[in-house]
């Protein structure tokens, strides 16, 4: 599923990761996920399925929520990528992380970085999301542990916290 062709034809790519300019030498079809994890040591994005189903490799690419296992590094050239490690400055991050902890939104934790990124992305777009909005916003992120209920609660709580004066 995860063809990364031989490293014989590497090219240089430049992009911004978590606000820092990065140059990497990689095969054009090497996946962004591998570049982030192996070349840049950013292991917060996880590989769950390698085919864009589970969302545990979610990152933001030019403010779009993407599965980094489906993005060839050539496509990331010139973009700005934000991973879970780069989200600490985001105003929603701490409330989301705290509400995930309080509500039980993280169990085994493997989907959690992607889930929290997806949640932050949703709350950036929707000020006051309904439960249906939350379900839809997280539809690309699979969790096998929680049955999602406590994740919905965590996202709703973070949203409410923001709305409160």
């Amino acid at each position, binding site marked *: 599923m995860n063809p990364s062709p031989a490293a014989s034809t590497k090219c240089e790519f430049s992009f911004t990761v978590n606000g820092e300019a990065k140059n990497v030498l990689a095969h054009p079809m090497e996946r962004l996920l591998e570049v982030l994890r192996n070349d840049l040591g950013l292991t917060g994005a996880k590989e*769950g399925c390698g085919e864009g189903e589970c969302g545990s490799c979610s990152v933001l690419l030019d403010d779009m929520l993407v599965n980094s296992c489906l993005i060839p590094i050539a496509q990331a050239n010139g973009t700005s990528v934000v991973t879970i490690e780069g989200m600490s400055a985001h105003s929603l991050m701490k409330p989301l992380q705290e509400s995930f902890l309080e509500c039980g939104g993280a169990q085994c934790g493997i989907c959690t970085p992607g889930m929290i990124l997806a949640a932050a992305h949703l709350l950036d777009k929707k000020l006051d999301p309904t439960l249906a909005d939350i379900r839809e916003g997280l539809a690309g992120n699979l969790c096998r542990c929680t*049955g999602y209920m*406590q994740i*919905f609660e965590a996202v709703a709580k973070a949203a409410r916290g923001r709305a409160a004066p």
Partner: protein
Amino acid sequence: MTVRHIVGASVPRKEGWDKVTGAARYVDDMVLPGMLHGATVRSTIGRGKIKQIHFGPGVDWNEYVVVSAKDIPGKNCISLILDDQPCLASEFVNHPEEPILLLAHPDRPKLRKAVEAVSIEYDPLPALHTIEESERQSTIIWGSDNTFKTFLVEKGDVDAVWKEAAHIVEGEYLTGAQEQLYIENNGVIAAFGPKSGVTVWGSLQCPYYVHKALMTLFALPEEKVRVVQMETGGAFGGKEEYPSMIAGHAALLAMKSGRPVKIVYDRMEDMAATTKRHPSRTRHRTAVDRHGRILGGEIEFTIDGGAYATLSSVVLSRGTIHAGGPYYWPNVRIRTKAVATNTPPHGAFRGFGAPQSLFAMERHMDRIAQVVGISPVEVRRRNFLKSGQTTTTEQTIKENIDLDRLLKRALELSDYAAKKKRFAEKNKAGTHRKGIGIAAFLHGAGFTGSGERYLNSLVGAEAGADGTVRVLVSSAEFGQGTNTVLCQIAAEALGLPYENVSIAQPDTTVVPNSGPTVASRTAMIVGKLVQSAARGIKETLTKTGLLHDDYSPEQFCAGCKEYIATHGALKSYARYQAPPDVYWDDEKYRGEAYAAFAWAVYVAEVTVDLTTYSVTVDDFVALQEVGRVLHPVLAEGQITGGVAQAIGFALYENVVWQDGRMMNNQMTNYIMPASMDLPPIRVFFEENGNVHGAHGAKGIGELPMDGPAPAIVNAVEDATGVRFCSIPLLPEDLFETVRPEFNEQVVFPLARGTS
């Protein structure tokens, strides 16, 4: 000053912050200097003799480390119960995806090409793929009769009941394989040194299972094998026995190459090659009186174990003991067996045989109700076990249970009666049919019968000079909350703040063997031992005069400091002691099967769309009695997560087999519930104390896997009038049997094989 009420409070998950920040370290996040990647060459056929192995052209094989069965220094098996499963096939293969060769290389992409370049010639042998094929014994693939294990439970005189019966109700029920689908695939890193022996870091549930398997595989003494559990991204039983296999593989490559080796499966390999829930077939023949009371019955329960024995005997055991459900059987005969087929071995998955036999029991109760002409509620009420009565294994129920009251409350919480009436009226017209179904069930906590006695678990606690205490157990955290709950128990026992207690990373050189992290045993059994070990520290300090009653954390700290300065390390251990009144006969399968049962009644509400033939669960009420709830948020998370997996088991998760191989081994076409697919899962607890568990806790992790599937299929029958007896229940099954114009009951043909 003493800190109170840590147990019962929803304190923060110990490793939670690392998980929400992405800092938690899973095995694939770890890199060792000079590390190679490993890969596995697997059989492409179901059964046959290996004739020749060809290393194809276009690959410089000198770059690769190659390991075959010949390289195994010890016994070529994955040591577990029967030691019949080879680590690497040498002469024969017995299932598709069986490991034959191992390759290692620094570059992962090059490794994939090399795996593809190996071709293996076989003399194929006839293979078996279903329970029925295995039973026919047209060819013998395991032992003398294709049977791994049988059990017989007999209570009373079943043969005498048939003539008294007002009705004899029969049914056959099937459940399919199910993939655990933890989001983190199986993975390990292994290192080898001539002096240090084997070290493995991995995603796993049972460090000492892997430890034992590696000792056998390498013929090494226990101190030359070290197993470390990394943060584990979900397991659900899927990392109970399989990690011994992948750890063995990586360690063999590490020994041969002299370098650390990482093997992390991708999703396709993980799904095709590793264990799944055992497919099952259950047959019921039940004698009931005219009021619907069970007089007696015969239950036949059969599971497909796959090609090797692995854990099938114990999965069968749990399925056997749970087969009679939470009901009183004055007379019963339960015959069960685990049979061999040429599929990858089926293994542990949350519930461990109980979801299979309980699916049958709870569908069959609805059937009995129909035959007798009473409601599904009434048939259960009339047959519930009561305190003082005995289970099918003649275990007397000593705890104070009131299943009637549990049922009544579940019906109220789900607004059952009103909905049942309303749906019956509404279903007369339109393209959507609504239904509501119930399931009542139980789940035994801890190892079955004498199991806990054999495990003989040991737990430690160690105090530091800074007054903090560290819990020492091999019980692993993989999402369920082990770290948190065990720290809560220790903190409460010591009267220390939760923050002053931590838990050691499971590492066999650091922690004692507290047993495997399975069987809903951690909170109840290991928890109780943690409590004893923690109290031991306090007693040591008290006895040496370094601590007095009613101490503060500061006084505790001062005591620890002084003790350690004078005597050295301050450690305390506690070993399992079987309750004196527990009796179990392994031969007759009679006696106290479990120290405690959790009890539950679940209610599912569904809509069947007669245009798309899909089933949607609209509402789900999960009410259970699990003893004392140690951490409400974690406990609720166990239930919602288990219910979600069980909804998948009932309606979505279909393993497509072809000649013993899983064909849909991708998340794209093996469908688990996503955020849009689930109803509100409403969780309620009743708390009856349990004398055997820490603070009165019972097991909780597996229970929610048992009830949803029968509750949902009972609801689908309520909606459509069609008697479905097989799961997963897919739209195509409904399409074949449910028609808007239907007017009489149809028995769904048992079309889908179990393998």
